[in-house]
């Protein structure tokens, strides 16, 4: 440990002054952060301590490796250098502080290697700042705008970072000059030719002045940070660490639904700590806004503003939440962003839903999860939106009027329409498909879903699926009238109670036939006759397949919340398996039309299934798949998810037509999909843009069934 050549403070008086300033800044910073942490502690509980090993791995990848932001290369690389620059500069800072006490960092203090690394990062951060300034000041991508925060926050931060590295470079330069090269740094050595002729006394004064300026900037930054968007610097590592390890497609279960006092979220106090931490972690980068299908077709939903709205509501309510007896209230600093007048309070923030977060925004969401997929800091937008819908539906009965009949029909008829569920198997009347009741030992249950069962267009899909299963000699059956709506649209719209009712009913049916993988049916014949009971279980592999990604997702990822564990696969994945096992033989390259494939949200982003449908299409189609600009995890929603298919689309451009136009831009003759809602939305979209002559919308199963028939 080598003490610095020259004391930066000039003696004990300066050092004492520095210590006082440092402690004051630390206390201010501490209370500000303490207040934010207390707000989280007082929030609703949520367990995020599962999968600890995975969490550590993710932390390394996303936080230290910056994998989230790097997906957008230009700002990503700039951010990478700023992030690592920040960490390295902390060591430099510590070294400078220790200088005031005639000390320095062990190992690093007089290590030339460290000095080089530090200065390289000073330069890299400076370059990154230029990139950021051009982006924010000249390019000005729309997603950086925020209706809640002025444009200044970003510039203040850039200015502060600039000051930090500028003063650091100047400290290094003048220290080098004042010590005549004894305090070696690359920057100091580089600028020495310019400074060597200056009077040594001036160099000394300049060195000390910039040392103080550097400290003042750093401490100012520290105090400013918890109030700015740069809070993400403190919160993001935690937010990434505590990200959800539950299946992406599962909304959280509303527990004890019959004994609760509230249902969902209308006030910010009803969010869990992790949901609030999302707000702290938001960097306001607006990537979520760039991909939102609602926003990009002119609907009033800005995913970023949902997150920031919740944060704003939290800050406005912080005084009340922290409570009169908290130290913060006693110090008079509990209201982080308290409104000054009752009018302000009334006008802006009470209640959160319907106030700072508009109900129109909440109803515009298609739950496509593009926002969550692109978010570099693991923010969970969709469950929050659904939580707020839950309150609107179950507490206020306030939802788009078209949805009332959907709820009533699911409740009474077990399907979204005014059709008796007894007719569920009518589509299959001429196809000789056994009901599971008639063939309870079937290997495969084909879960047809409401669309496949009742919607005329999608009955053709169901028929195709059945033909494929027959061609592959699969021993399968359907449930017929025993099948009931999975409840997915109800759950996404916010009617958790209806989803739980439907799910419970379906789970009972499926368990009754022994499909549960965790509690298989007990084979009665194996019960010992001598008082011993052997619980022999069905070991037969039993699979549920479905052509509806919404049924698929909720059965696979959400039914386990109520004890329904099943092996369920999307039909495209099952077909891919049949091909791989040579159980299904296709005339390869039979279909010669130019084809593009749309990844349904609930197959793709929800369940990370991108390649199986493409493999199947590549076998059957001589041209393979011509991709749309937005494909795989960037796929653009058809507009039907999240219950939107049951609501009117009154504002802006039509989402389905927007996607159909994208498909048309590939000059494909076929738009292939694997979701009944996508098919319905796109057929409407194709009609809407009058492209019936140019492009057909087909389910993958239809393309295959057609090839099988023509073989």
């Amino acid at each position: 440990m080598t003490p610095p050549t020259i004391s930066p403070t000039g003696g004990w008086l300066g050092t004492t002054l520095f210590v006082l300033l440092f402690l004051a800044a630390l206390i201010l910073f501490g209370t500000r952060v303490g207040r934010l942490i207390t707000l989280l502690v007082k929030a609703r509980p949520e367990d995020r301590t599962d999968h600890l090993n995975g969490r550590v791995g993710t932390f390394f990848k996303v936080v230290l490796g910056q994998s989230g932001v790097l997906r957008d290369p230009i700002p990503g690389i700039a951010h990478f250098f700023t992030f690592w620059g920040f960490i390295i500069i902390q060591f430099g800072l510590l070294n400078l502080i220790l200088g005031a006490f005639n000390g320095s960092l062990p190992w690093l203090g007089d290590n030339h290697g460290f000095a080089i690394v530090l200065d390289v990062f000073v330069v890299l951060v400076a370059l990154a700042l230029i990139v950021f300034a051009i982006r924010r000041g000249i390019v000005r991508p729309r997603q950086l705008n925020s209706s809640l925060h002025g444009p200044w926050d970003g510039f203040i931060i850039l200015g502060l970072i600039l000051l930090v590295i500028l003063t650091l470079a100047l400290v290094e330069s003048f220290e080098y000059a004042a010590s005549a090269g004894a305090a070696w740094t690359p920057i100091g050595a580089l600028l020495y030719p310019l400074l060597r002729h200056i009077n040594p006394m001036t160099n000394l004064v300049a060195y000390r002045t910039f040392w103080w300026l550097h400290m003042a900037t750093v401490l100012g930054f520290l105090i400013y940070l918890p109030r700015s968007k740069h809070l993400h610097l403190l919160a993001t590592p935690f937010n990434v660490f505590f990200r959800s390890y539950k299946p992406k497609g599962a909304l959280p279960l509303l527990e004890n639904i019959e004994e609760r006092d509230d249902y969902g979220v209308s006030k910010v106090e009803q969010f869990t700590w992790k949901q609030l931490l999302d707000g702290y972690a938001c960097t306001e980068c607006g990537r979520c806004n760039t991909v939102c299908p609602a926003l990009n077709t002119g609907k009033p939903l800005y995913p970023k503003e949902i997150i920031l709205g919740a944060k704003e509501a939290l800050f406005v309510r912080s005084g009340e939440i922290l409570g009169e007896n908290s130290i913060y209230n006693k110090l008079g600093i509990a209201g982080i962003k308290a409104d000054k007048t009752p009018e302000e309070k009334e006008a802006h923030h009470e209640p959160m839903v319907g106030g700072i977060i508009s109900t129109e925004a909440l109803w515009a969401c298609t739950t496509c999860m593009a926002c969550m997929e692109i978010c570099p800091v693991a923010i969970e937008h969709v469950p929050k939106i659904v939580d707020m819908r839950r309150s609107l539906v179950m507490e206020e009965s306030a939802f788009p009027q078209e949805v009332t009949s959907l709820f009533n029909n699911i409740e009474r008829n077990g399907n979204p329409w005014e059709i008796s569920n007894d007719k569920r198997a009518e589509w299959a009347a001429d196809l000789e498909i056994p009901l599971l009741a008639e063939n309870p030992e079937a290997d495969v249950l084909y879960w047809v879903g409401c669309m496949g069962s009742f919607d005329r267009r999608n009955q053709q899909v169901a028929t195709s699926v059945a033909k494929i299963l027959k061609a592959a000699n699969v021993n399968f059956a359907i449930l017929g009238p025993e099948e009931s709506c999975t409840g997915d649209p109800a759950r996404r719209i916010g009617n958790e109670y209806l989803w739980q009712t439907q799910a419970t009913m379906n789970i009972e049916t499926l368990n009754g036939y022994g499909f549960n993988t965790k509690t298989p049916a007990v084979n009665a014949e194996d019960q010992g006759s001598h008082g011993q009971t052997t619980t022999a279980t069905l070991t037969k592999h039993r699979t549920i397949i479905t052509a509806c990604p919404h049924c698929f997702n909720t059965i696979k990822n959400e039914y386990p919340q109520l004890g329904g564990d099943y092996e369920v696969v999307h039909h495209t994945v099952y077909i891919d398996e049949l091909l791989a096992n040579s159980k299904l033989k296709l005339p390869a390259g039979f279909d010669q039309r130019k084809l593009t494939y749309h990844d349904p949200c609930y197959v793709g982003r929800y369940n990370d299934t991108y390649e199986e449908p493409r493999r199947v299409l590549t076998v059957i189609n001589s041209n393979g798949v011509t991709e749309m600009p937005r494909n795989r995890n960037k796929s653009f929603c058809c507009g039907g998810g999240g219950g939107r298919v049951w609501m009117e689309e009154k504002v802006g451009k039509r989402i389905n037509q927007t996607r159909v136009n994208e498909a048309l831009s590939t000059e494909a003759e076929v738009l292939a999909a694997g979701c009944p809602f996508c098919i319905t939305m796109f057929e409407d979209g194709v009609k809407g843009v009058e492209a019936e002559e140019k492009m057909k919308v087909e389910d993958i199963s239809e393309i295959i069934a057609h090839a099988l028939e023509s073989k």
Partner: protein
Amino acid sequence: MKMFVCIKQVPDPNTAISKLDPATKRLVRSGVSLVLDPGDESTISAAIKLRDKVGNSELVALSMGPASAQEATRRALAMGVDRAILITDPALAGSDAFSTAQVLAAALKKEGADLIFCSTESTDGYTGMVPGGIAEFLGIPQLTFAREITIEGQKAIIKRVIPKGYQTIESTLPAVITIASGSYEAIYPTMKGIMGAKKKTLTQMSLADLGIAATQVGEAGAHERVLSIGKAEARAAGQIIKDDGNAAQQIAEFLQRYQLL
């Protein structure tokens, strides 16, 4: 103010394949899904709105039917009705509109009602005679086809739907008001409503409670007899307008013909 809404459980009109029993010539009510009459849902919603607007009032759902009709009254309670009364008695089976009105009127008299809401007609029998019967038995005015209701002191004022628009009419209270179908959006129950409905009072009454003799009602006391039943004529095919330049005008004329424009 004491308000009542008369409701009925019916075979789900949206799904039930209406079956008529050739022997009794009546609608088959067993083995089909039974629901609160969807028409009553909007009547209940109208009543709830008015109760909340008037303030300091109680709204009671009143129904006559078998014990299974409790389900329908639960739905009304979940929607926001304060309590419910179900008149149920084996002797009531086979009651016609006349007896039904008589029984409901007896219960309303016993309870004392200021305002009684009914749907214009039920979605199963479609006689449309019960509301008038209640008014007659109670000797109070009946205001029909209301699409808007206001209470001013001891007066009810309604906008009454007529083919070419509406009339504004008023009457003294107590009164029976029937709601024009489609005028009120049905309330979808909240969770608090659904859970709260389990705790609300549901009173069962028998004929004895109302002091009505079994011979006056049911099959025995029916004044109506269904003579025969037959298939409804198949609806004629609709008119298809192809656009040859003046489709808009043709559509407008069509709508005008039915006074919809």
